[in-house]
């Protein structure tokens, strides 16, 4: 069981994150203040820590510094409403693994956590196997039935989003934001999403991959795999 610590003072948001992650099979714990957060990281080991920067009692960066002093290698993803570049740069400098600006989609968060944990667990040979799919997360290549399938960057990014959220419904806007990354004004047009998904689906089908990618009418898509 992978353990996730959610350091977030907005209780309801923390609960939503925890609900979503629990359904993915993670064990979640919550910390609402800096003091609680410090207490938790002192006593326990986590696979991943979600860290809000603005906490009652101090900055989340202090928590990050304390964690690094203890030489713990918990993965840390900063989740902050302060989309300030300085915070981002400082956080990554101190040792955070990723930075996700609020507001974010839970599916995006789950994909980031998934990628982070995969990186931490298998640094050298990061090969993800789902039935006939073999995804090399480091080399960013896909083979289906031992045959390489060439995907574009966007298609690969979509595939990662799906495998990081298997059996969950992902909204189109979450996919659009995932494709646009940091560039807020980039893919505000959902046509892109349709086009990329269509191409990905076609390539998967042609390679003889099972029909895992389902369209949920009026909502989005789902990667269904048992």
């Amino acid at each position, binding site marked *: 069981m992978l353990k996730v610590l959610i350091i977030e003072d907005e209780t309801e948001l923390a609960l939503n994150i925890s609900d979503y992650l629990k359904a993915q099979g993670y064990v979640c714990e919550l910390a609402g203040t800096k003091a609680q957060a410090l207490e938790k990281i002192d006593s326990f080991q986590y696979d991943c820590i979600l860290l809000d920067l603005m906490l009652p009692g101090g900055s989340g960066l202090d928590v990050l510094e304390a964690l690094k002093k203890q030489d713990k290698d918990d993965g840390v993803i900063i989740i902050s409403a302060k*989309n300030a570049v300085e915070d981002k740069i400082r956080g990554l400098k101190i040792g955070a693994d990723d930075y996700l600006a609020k507001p974010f*989609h839970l599916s995006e968060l789950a994909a980031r956590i998934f990628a982070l944990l995969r990186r931490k667990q298998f640094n050298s040979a990061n090969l993800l196997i789902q039935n006939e799919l073999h995804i090399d997360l480091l080399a960013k290549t896909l083979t289906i039935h031992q045959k390489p399938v060439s995907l574009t960057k966007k298609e690969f990014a979509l595939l990662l989003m799906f495998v990081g959220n298997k059996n969950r419904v992902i*909204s189109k806007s979450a996919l659009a934001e995932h494709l646009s990354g940091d560039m*807020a004004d*980039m893919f*505000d047009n959902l046509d892109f999403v349709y086009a990329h998904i269509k191409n990905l689906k076609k390539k998967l089908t042609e390679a003889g991959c099972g029909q895992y990618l389902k369209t949920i009418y009026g909502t989005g898509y789902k990667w269904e795999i048992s």
Partner: protein
Amino acid sequence: MTKLLNKPLKAFILFTFLVLSASIPVYFYFIESIWMDELDDHNRQVKEQIRTGFNASHSVLLNEKIALWNAMQSSSRIEPVSGFRRDSVYVVEREMMESGPMEEERFRGLTSTVVLGGKPYLVTVETNVEEIHETVLEIALITGLFILLLIAGFILLNRRLSARVWLPFTDALEKLKRFNLDSNESVVFKETDVEEFTELNAVLTQLIENTRQSYRQQKEFTQNASHELQTPLALLKSKLDLLIQDRSLNTSQRQVIESLDNSISRISRINKNLLLLAGIENRGYESGTLDLSGIVRNLFDVFSESASSLGIGLSAAITEEEIIDANESLLEIMISNLLSNAVRHCSPKSDIRVILNDRVLVIDNEGGASLDAANLFRRFTSAGTGNPGTGLGLAIVKEICDKYGWQVAYVFAGGRHVFSVSFSS
């Protein structure tokens, strides 16, 4: 437009002209009367000389002597008269024979009865006077000369003075012209010993400080408001993400959720852009030397994949090894905003061209009619209707360009929307 100092100058010149012109008849009157007095004195002296001279000599041959006098003297005449007459002075103009060509000359005359040898004689003495028109002309000439001298002096002094006296003013004006609300450079005006300028500078300094402060407050407000919105938006998004997992939702409920999701995404984007816009000139965006060509190429690759999936062609001509000093994320945001703008407004099956050459980036795409160039870069003035954008993309482009002193421009030429950024500041 006239210069401030030229306005009183005109009045001064006009006044000088009027006063000096009015002095011409006055001078003339005084000179004429001095002339006449002096000539009357002179004529009287001549008459006295005649009287004493002739009376001192013997009265023999008096008539011959008088005839001889009259023949020799042109300016005086002695004629016998029957009775005494009162002295009279007069002015006469007549033609003079002897001085070259015939000319009208003016004379001041005196007729007086004197007793020579016991008999009364009428003595007429006439002295040549300058003619009226000549006198007037000479006075006018001299006065005119002085008018010219004065005017020339005024203009010269004015020019010298305006350069020096107005120095603090022109300095302040120049500084105001270069004033930029976004920069934190303080504006320091030249010290001056002129009361009005000192006051003006004090007022301007105060005004600038107040403006800066309210501008800062406005930005802070935008940032704070956007920050405050982030958490409830995050909550909304996460709730929807949980809600769509529900298997019992029917199609119409899913459609409602989808439109909610789209609206929230849009609000989030607007909010992110507002935050970005308010914070562009903040510290934190550290500059570094960047490979402009590489960044343009990378973004081109990112966009061309998405564009080609929509049937839009993207072509590039990127000169290698263009280097620039800027913040990497800001530069990427700026270029990708221009690219996404082109993709968004590009009609299907048309093409977009990206050209980077000699520190100028040009991105153009086919279009029907010119966009509203005046308002294009302003916030929330999206040119097209049904625009899926946030209305902030180009405002952000402009803000980033302003930060680094790059020039961004839009023209509609040859049926294409052409956006260009010149990186040479």
